[in-house]
């Protein structure tokens, strides 16, 4: 079994093992072990990747190709480049942290962890697959468990939120499917087999008419899960109703599928389409950035605030991707990573605070710094990371994005870039607003004085997410280099047009 397929196999085995567990203890131990193995593999993968990269100059390494459905030339084709490696590490970390955070899940723990693990399977598969069909399969595998996770273990209007989320994401994948089929049936320039293999499709240039038609389908198909305005409405409700670990996984990893897919499929395979449509989608993404930030100002529910800030941050990712230059793309990938860790951390903390105060309404809390200093300080740190404080991952990512954006000298791009840059102020406003309301000020509620600070497993989860946030922020060089050399082959297709 090759190094990549294991990433899909291990979770499946974990799920199977989970079916035989009796109670919470066994279930969480099993999951933790499985996910620890996964995490170890992810760490190992990055070293393996560097070793391989040293001798192997292909776009993708660790390639595996297995014929699946011969008549359609559908393969089980996998492989990774630097970007997918990073995404896999992100996934492994967030999932493991999520397991720790949901250490005390009481209702149907076995089922919870099984569903969670299946979700993880889908995500891993998505990140390693090179074949559009395989990719699509894993994409849907990753999306569907959300319904059960939110619906069963959620809170508030969970049924509504779960249904909304599932339908919108599935509707998106419907568009995506049409786009993929369109790509498939144009994937050969006269003669030769049709193929789903991304790398092979990238060799032929798809007729412009087809690109014009299928780019928006593919793009929107992915952008919905990337919470692009105006397709973001599933995310606030979904996040708000989801249980902690699921919000973490969802905001931390699942929403990254969008940007990743746009980068890997839509823009890589349909460069001319990208060029043709970029203006339109840039406008959308910029609206998303500003709009998400401004909408977050008015929210009082912590999870809603984070959901909207995710809309804003991920809008930045899409914006950066559409800037079509290396710096911005590096920024986009970094932003995905940083947002992944940071938001996961945020949701973990919100979950802890909610578990203690039983409210998510920031206006009802106050002075938490006094009663639960550890959680509160970490919350402040996460907040600072989110508003792009130097030394945190967010700053590095945003700076790359801005620097890339400012390399366009025409007025349209300039205006858009300035709008996006100005979002950092709004971000500061809503972050500090929450910090001021919730953590600082006098303690509003007397029984808060009896609250306990984070437990050991919560601390483990927190540190797992905090370390990368700071790490990326302090020493971004190796990371950006790694991303850069993975981006080069992708940018080429675009640059020839510009």
């Amino acid at each position, binding site marked *: 079994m090759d190094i990549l397929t294991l990433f899909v196999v291990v979770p499946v085995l974990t799920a199977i093992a989970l079916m035989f567990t009796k109670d919470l203890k066994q279930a969480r131990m099993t999951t933790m072990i499985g996910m620890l193995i996964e995490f170890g593999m992810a760490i190992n993968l990055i070293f393996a990747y560097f070793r391989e990269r040293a001798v192997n100059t292909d776009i993708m390494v660790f390639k595996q190709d297995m014929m699946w459905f011969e008549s359609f030339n559908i393969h089980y084709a996998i492989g990774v480049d630097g970007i997918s490696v990073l995404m896999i590490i992100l996934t492994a970390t967030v999932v493991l942290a999520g397991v720790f955070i949901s250490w005390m899940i009481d209702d149907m723990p076995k089922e919870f962890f099984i569903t969670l693990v299946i979700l993880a399977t889908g995500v891993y598969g998505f990140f390693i697959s090179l074949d559009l069909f395989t990719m699509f399969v894993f994409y849907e595998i990753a999306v569907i468990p959300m319904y059960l996770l939110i619906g069963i273990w959620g809170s508030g209007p969970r049924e509504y939120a779960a249904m*909304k989320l599932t*339908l*919108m994401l599935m509707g998106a994948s419907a568009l995506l499917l049409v786009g993929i089929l369109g790509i498939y049936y144009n994937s050969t320039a006269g003669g030769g087999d049709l193929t789903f293999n991304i790398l092979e499709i990238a060799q032929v240039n798809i007729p412009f008419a087809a690109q014009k038609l299928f780019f928006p389908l593919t793009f929107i198909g992915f952008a919905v899960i990337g919470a692009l*305005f*105006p*397709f*973001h*409405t*599933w995310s606030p409700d979904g996040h708000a109703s989801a249980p902690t670990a699921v919000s973490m996984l969802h905001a931390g990893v699942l929403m990254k599928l969008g940007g990743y897919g746009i980068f890997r499929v839509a823009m890589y395979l349909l460069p001319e389409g990208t060029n043709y449509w970029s203006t339109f989608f840039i406008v959308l993404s910029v609206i998303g950035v500003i*709009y998400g930030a*401004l*909408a977050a*100002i*008015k*929210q009082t529910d912590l999870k809603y605030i984070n959901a909207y800030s995710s809309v804003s941050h991920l809008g930045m990712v899409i914006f950066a991707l559409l800037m079509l*230059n*290396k*710096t911005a793309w*590096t920024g986009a990938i970094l932003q995905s990573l940083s947002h992944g860790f940071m938001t996961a951390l945020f949701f973990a903390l919100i979950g802890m605070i909610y578990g203690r105060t039983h409210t998510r309404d920031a206006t009802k809390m106050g*002075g938490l*710094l*006094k009663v639960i*200093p550890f959680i509160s300080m970490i919350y402040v740190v996460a907040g*600072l990371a989110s*508003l792009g*404080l*130097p*030394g945190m991952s967010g*700053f*590095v990512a945003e*700076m*790359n994005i*801005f*620097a*890339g954006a*400012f*390399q366009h*000298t025409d007025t349209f791009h300039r205006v858009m870039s*300035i709008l996006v*840059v*100005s979002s*950092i*102020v709004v971000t*500061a*406003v809503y972050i*500090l*607003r929450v910090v*001021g309301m919730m*953590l*600082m*000020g*006098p*303690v509003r509620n007397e029984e808060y004085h009896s609250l306990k600070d984070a437990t050991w497993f919560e601390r483990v989860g927190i540190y797992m997410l905090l370390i990368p946030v700071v790490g990326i922020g302090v020493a*971004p*060089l190796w990371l*950006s*280099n790694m991303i*850069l050399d993975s981006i080069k082959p992708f940018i080429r297709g675009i640059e020839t047009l510009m």
Partner: protein
Amino acid sequence: MDFSYTIFILIIPIAMFLLLGFFYNKIKPAVSGWIGVAGLTAVAGMSYYTAYQYFFNIPKVAGKFQTFFGFKMNWMNYILPKTEDLPERFLAIDMGILLDPISIMMMVVVSTISLMVHIYSRGYMKGDRGYTKFFAFLSLFTFAMMGLVVATNLFQIYVFWELVGVSSFLLIGYYYEKPSAVAAAKKAFIVTRFADLGFLIGILLMGYYGGSYDFMELNNPEGFNIILENAPQKFMGISVITTALILMFMGGAGKSAMFPLHIWLPDAMEGPTPVSALIHAATMVVAGVYLVARMFPMFHFFDDGFALHVVAWVGAISSLIAAIIALTQTDIKRVLAFSTMSQIGYMMLALGVSEYDGHEGLGYMASMWHLFSHAMFKALLFLAAGSVIHAVHSNYLKDMGGLRKYLPITNITFLIAALSISGFPLTAGFFSKDEILVAAFEHNKPIYFITLFVAGLTAFYMFRLYFGIFWGKKTAYEHTPHESPWSMTIPLMFLAFMSIASGYLPFSEWVTADREAIHGHIGLFSNLGAIHWDMAAIAIATGLLGIAIAWFFYKKPTDYPAKISAAFGRFYKWTFNKFYIDEVYLFITHKIIFKCISTPFAWFDKKVVDATMEGIGNKTVDVSKLIKGVQSGKIQDYAFAFAGGVFILVLIVMYML
């Protein structure tokens, strides 16, 4: 010459921060206090040693001080796309330590004040819950400020710029249970953040058009033509570079509380007094000045100094407004805050009126000198004020008076500082301020008169303060105020000494725009030149006039002040309310941004975007409700549908297609 040890100037504070921060509940307060002092002593020692090495032991080259790098590493790279004449290339971002006269001077200032504040805080903060946390934050700030002053490039300066802002946020909000403190902290951070937006955009533009962030490359006059070729765009008649510079100055104005971005500074006084002394008087608030000084060649050469004129006038206006407002404030820390603002305005305008080479660069030297001496006496003023507050537990003049016999040391030191800031002869303030006046006089008459006027006002309100606190009416104190402990008075005395002594440093030889020793006017012990008594006389006269009026009004309680304020009426009210600038901001942020933008957005999101998505779903269900009657349960209807279906299909395929 090897300066690599300077890296420890950064490492020690951050190490202290991590140590104190992670074990804030393990370490005993006393211990943490000593850790802080010890660390800072080491840092200060190293700074002094560096300064000594740099100014005395290193030969100048062609009469210029050279630039050294204590340390430099590549932190990140951007890719600049290839243009028609240039290939695709790296835009490197380094982290490092740059040593040249101004950075070393700043190192000395920061480490000195920080050390003093550490010592002072051991007494001032005794018995506070977050004692250890406080020292951790102080260390963080020291680290950030040091990183800022030794920055080798624009990007590094921005990085530490933000860190400074955050540590300022944390320290202002130190008493986080006081809502006012929280509000002040938020205000400070957000206002400066807004200013930094300009800074950031400026940096981005500069990076793209200048092709580098590195000061050495940007500030080297030979490279300017190339930059101008790469940046041909003209925007309202000025080149992109100048736009970038002005935007960067916006950031500087924000940090240095220049009009109209000064509103956060008075509120920032909510923080503990040592913090106000360190951050909001001596070091952080002069970061803007430092930035302009750092980029001085660009400011000076592009569009023949357009940006520099902006700096000059912003500085002048700020100093005037601040001085006027300071007249009427009753919270002593706020008075000091406004005087800080006005003094920084001095430094700005001094830079603004300065030229580049030789004696023309007098303003630059003056500004740096004033920065130095101001740091000393303003820190002293704050610490003394802190000692007073410590004694009477109030910030307001009305609760004070006749304290001179209770607090002798504080009284003396405060007096020295007040004299120094009023430019009393032979104090540090006298020398540095006079250089500024000369520079202004030589290059820009209107600004000169503003400056002179402000000097008078400064003298007046400082002594209003002094008499109000230590003389004036006999106030009855419920428990008699007592002099502060040694840990607090020693820094006072040291700084008092400095706020005289720093007047006798040969700045004109050390810190100049083109780094060549120039002919200063006042440098008594400098072998170059002697006092221009004509200029000095005017200044002294103004200062003494101010002091005299203050004496006349406030030494004994009189009713003149009431009369005057009544005479001014409306104007007085305006001044007292700081010209309602805060209210304007409040209106913009709350009424406009919150009410008119954010709320509608939230509404729009729920009611329009979301509703549309909902609507699609609901409509589908409605349709299915609508058509349910078709399934009527009657066979004959079914049969009719059947037949009709056939019929229509036939029609379609036969005639329509």
